[in-house]
C-alpha cells in the first residue's frame, strides 16, 4: 500500500509541476486581444443541444441525400446516353467484322452493359455524396455526432467512439473495421467490428438511392419526390443505426458481457474545409477508387453471368436453376430468387449486386435497352417488382453479410474465425427476419 501511495503522490507532483511550467510559459509568450464572440461555442451549444441536436443531425443527413439525389439525376442521364450511344457503335463494329454471336453477347451484352450501368448509375451520386460527406468531416462535425450519440451507445453497452467507426463505415466497412482500433477495450472493439456492417457503405449507397428514387416516390410531383426519396434513404440509415444499437445491446448482455468504458472526446475547433482539396481528394481517393473496384469485379462478373445464363442444362439456363432454387426463400422475404442470387454472387463487392441482378434479369427476359432510370424501373416492374420489393431490397442491402474485403479485414483484426463467421451470420439473420416480417405484414 505504502509503495502505491508513494507512486501516486510522486505522479501527482510530476503532473502538477509540468502543468505549472506549461501555464507559466504559455502566459509569457501569448498575448490575447479581445476575443470577441466565441462562434465555436455558440455553434456547439446548438448542434449538441438536447432539443436541436438530433433534429439537426437528421436534417443534415436528409439534406446531403437530397442534394445527392437531385444533383445526380441529370449527369446520370447524360452518362447513360453516352454509354448507350457507344454501345450502338460497338454493335456496329461487331457486325462489321462479323464477330460470332457468342463473343458479341459476352463482351457487349455481358461485360460492357454491366459496366456502363455501374458507371452511369453509381458515378454521379458518388461524385456528389463523397465530397459532401468529406466536407462535413473536414468541418469537424463528426465528433459532435459522436457527442450526441454517446449516451445512446453507453446505454446499449457499446463505446461512444463507435459513432466514429460507424462514420468510417459510411465510406467503407473494411475501413470502419480497421478504425475500431481506436477503441481500447477488446469487448467494445468487437462490438464495433461486428456491427459496423449495419451502416451502408458507399458500395451500397448508389443502390439505395436508385431504388428509393424509382419506387418510393411514385405519383408525387418532381420536386417533392426527390425530397421523399432523400427521406427514405435517411430513414434507412437511421434504421441501420437503431439496429446497431439493438444488436450492441444484445451482444453486451450475452456474448460480450460488460460495462461500457468512459473516454475523453475532444470537440476540435471548427475549421474552414479545404474545399478544393476535398473535391479533388474525395473524387480521386474515394469515387474513382470505389468505381474502379466495382469495374474490376463487375467486368469478370458480367462475363460469368453471361456464361451461367447461356449454358443450358436441359431446358433452362444454369442461372435459372440457381435462381429457382433460391426463389422460395426469396418470396418469403418479399424478394425473389434472382435478388438473393445477386446478393450471394455480390459477395466480392456490394457494388456489383445491382449489376448482377440486372444482367440476370436481362438474360432471362427480353433484351431491352436500359437507357435510363425509367427503363430500369420498367425492367424491374416487368419482373414483378413492387414498392415492397424495393423496400425489402434496400433493407436486405443494409442487413446482410459484409463484402469479402470486410470479412477478410474482420478475420485479420479479430484473428478469429468464430467472430468472422458471426459477423457474417448475424446481419444475415437479422435481414431475413426483418424482410420476412415486413413482407408478412404487408402481404
Amino acid at each position, binding site marked *: 500500500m505504502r509503495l502505491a501511495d508513494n507512486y501516486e503522490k510522486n505522479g501527482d507532483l*510530476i503532473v502538477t509541476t509540468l502543468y505549472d511550467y506549461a501555464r507559466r510559459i504559455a502566459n509569457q509568450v501569448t498575448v490575447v486581444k479581445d476575443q470577441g464572440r466565441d462562434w465555436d461555442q455558440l455553434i456547439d451549444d446548438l448542434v449538441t443541444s438536447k432539443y436541436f441536436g438530433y433534429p439537426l443531425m437528421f436534417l443534415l443527413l436528409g439534406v446531403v441525400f437530397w442534394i445527392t439525389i437531385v444533383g445526380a439525376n441529370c449527369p446520370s442521364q447524360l452518362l447513360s446516353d453516352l454509354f448507350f450511344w457507344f454501345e450502338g457503335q460497338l454493335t456496329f463494329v461487331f457486325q462489321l467484322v462479323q464477330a460470332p454471336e457468342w463473343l458479341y453477347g459476352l463482351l457487349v451484352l455481358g461485360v460492357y452493359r454491366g459496366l456502363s450501368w455501374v458507371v452511369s448509375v453509381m458515378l454521379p451520386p458518388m461524385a456528389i455524396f463523397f465530397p459532401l460527406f468529406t466536407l462535413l468531416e473536414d468541418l469537424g462535425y463528426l465528433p459532435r455526432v459522436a457527442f450526441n450519440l454517446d449516451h445512446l451507445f453507453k446505454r446499449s453497452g457499446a463505446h461512444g467512439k463507435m459513432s466514429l467507426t460507424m462514420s468510417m463505415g459510411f465510406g467503407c466497412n473494411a475501413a470502419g473495421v480497421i478504425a475500431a482500433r481506436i477503441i481500447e477495450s477488446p469487448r467494445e472493439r468487437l462490438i464495433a467490428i461486428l456491427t459496423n456492417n449495419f451502416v451502408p457503405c458507399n458500395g451500397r449507397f448508389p443502390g439505395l438511392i436508385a431504388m428509393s428514387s424509382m419506387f418510393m416516390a411514385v405519383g408525387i410531383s418532381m420536386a417533392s419526390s426527390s425530397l421523399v426519396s432523400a427521406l427514405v434513404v435517411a430513414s434507412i440509415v437511421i434504421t441501420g443505426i437503431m439496429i446497431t444499437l439493438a444488436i450492441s445491446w444484445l451482444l453486451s448482455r450475452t456474448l460480450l458481457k460488460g460495462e461500457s468504458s468512459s473516454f475523453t472526446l475532444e470537440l476540435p475547433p471548427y475549421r474552414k474545409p479545404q474545399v478544393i482539396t476535398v473535391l479533388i481528394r474525395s473524387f480521386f481517393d474515394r469515387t474513382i477508387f470505389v468505381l474502379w473496384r466495382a469495374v474490376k469485379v463487375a467486368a469478370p462478373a458480367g462475363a460469368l453471368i453471361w456464361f451461367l445464363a447461356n449454358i443450358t442444362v436441359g431446358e433452362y439456363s444454369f442461372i435459372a436453376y440457381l435462381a429457382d432454387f433460391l426463389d422460395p426463400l426469396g418470396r418469403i422475404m418479399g424478394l425473389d430468387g434472382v435478388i438473393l442470387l445477386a446478393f450471394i454472387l455480390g459477395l466480392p463487392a456490394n457494388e456489383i449486386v445491382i449489376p448482377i441482378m440486372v444482367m440476370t434479369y436481362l438474360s432471362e427476359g427480353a433484351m431491352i435497352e436500359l437507357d435510363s432510370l425509367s427503363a430500369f424501373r420498367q425492367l424491374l416492374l416487368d419482373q414483378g417488382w413492387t414498392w415492397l420489393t424495393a423496400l425489402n431490397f434496400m433493407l436486405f442491402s443494409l442487413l446482410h453479410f459484409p463484402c469479402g474485403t470486410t470479412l477478410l479485414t474482420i478475420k485479420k483484426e479479430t484473428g478469429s474465425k468464430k467472430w468472422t463467421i458471426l459477423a457474417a451470420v448475424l446481419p444475415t439473420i437479422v435481414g431475413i427476419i426483418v424482410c420476412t416480417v415486413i413482407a408478412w405484414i404487408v402481404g
Partner: protein
Amino acid sequence: MSDYLISLAGNPNTGKSTVFNRLTGLKQHTGNWPGKTVLQAWGFYRYQNEQYTLVDLPGTYSLLAHSPEEQVARDFICFGQPDATVVVVDATSLERNLNLVLQVLEITSQVVVCLNLVDEAKRKNIQVNAAKLGDELGVPVVETVARRGIGLKELQEQIHLLVHGKIKTNPLKIHYPPELENKISDLIKQLHYLPESLNKRWVALRLLEGDQSILRGIQEVTRLAFS
C-alpha cells in the same frame, strides 16, 4: 537506406497529419477528428540531398502511457532512437500543447517545435511570440500554417541544422519540488548500468511514478546494448 529518422509528435487535431502529408507528399486523408492515427505512418522526404524518414506518431496529450496511443508515441521517442523529434503544437491552445512538449523535452534534447495553426490563432486574436517561446524552451520553434504549406521549408531547414549538430539545443529543465528531486538523484545513482542512450533522469521519474510499462522497454534496450 535513410540518412535520418525523424519522429512527429503532437496533440490530436493540431494538423500533425497535415504536416506529415505535406512533408512526405503522401495523400492520406486527414480527418478532423481525434484518434485517426492509431498506428504510426511512415513516409520519406529529401532535403539538401539527404533522405529523411518521417514517422507520424499517434496524437496524444501526454506521454504518461495511460493509453495505447500514448505508449506507442512514448516508446518510439524513447526507444526508437530518432535523430530528432518534431512536436506539432496548436498555437490556439498553447498551454495544453506545451504539456506534451515539456514531456518530450524530458526525454530528448533533439527537438524542433512546429508552432502550427498560427493563422487560426491570428483570427482568434491570439498572438504567440515564437522567438520568446524558443528562448524559454531552449529548442528551435518554427511558425507554420501546414495546410497552406507555409513555414515547412523553414521546418526542414531547422531539422537539417539540428541533426547535423549545427544548432545546440539547451532544453528547459523541469525542476521538481525538493522532496522529489532528492528521490530522483538517489535513484539515478542506482541506474548507472543503463546504456548511454537512455535518459536516466527521465527513467527515474517514471520509476518513481510506478510506471510498469517502462520496464519492458528498458529490458529490451539493455539487452541490445550488452549483446
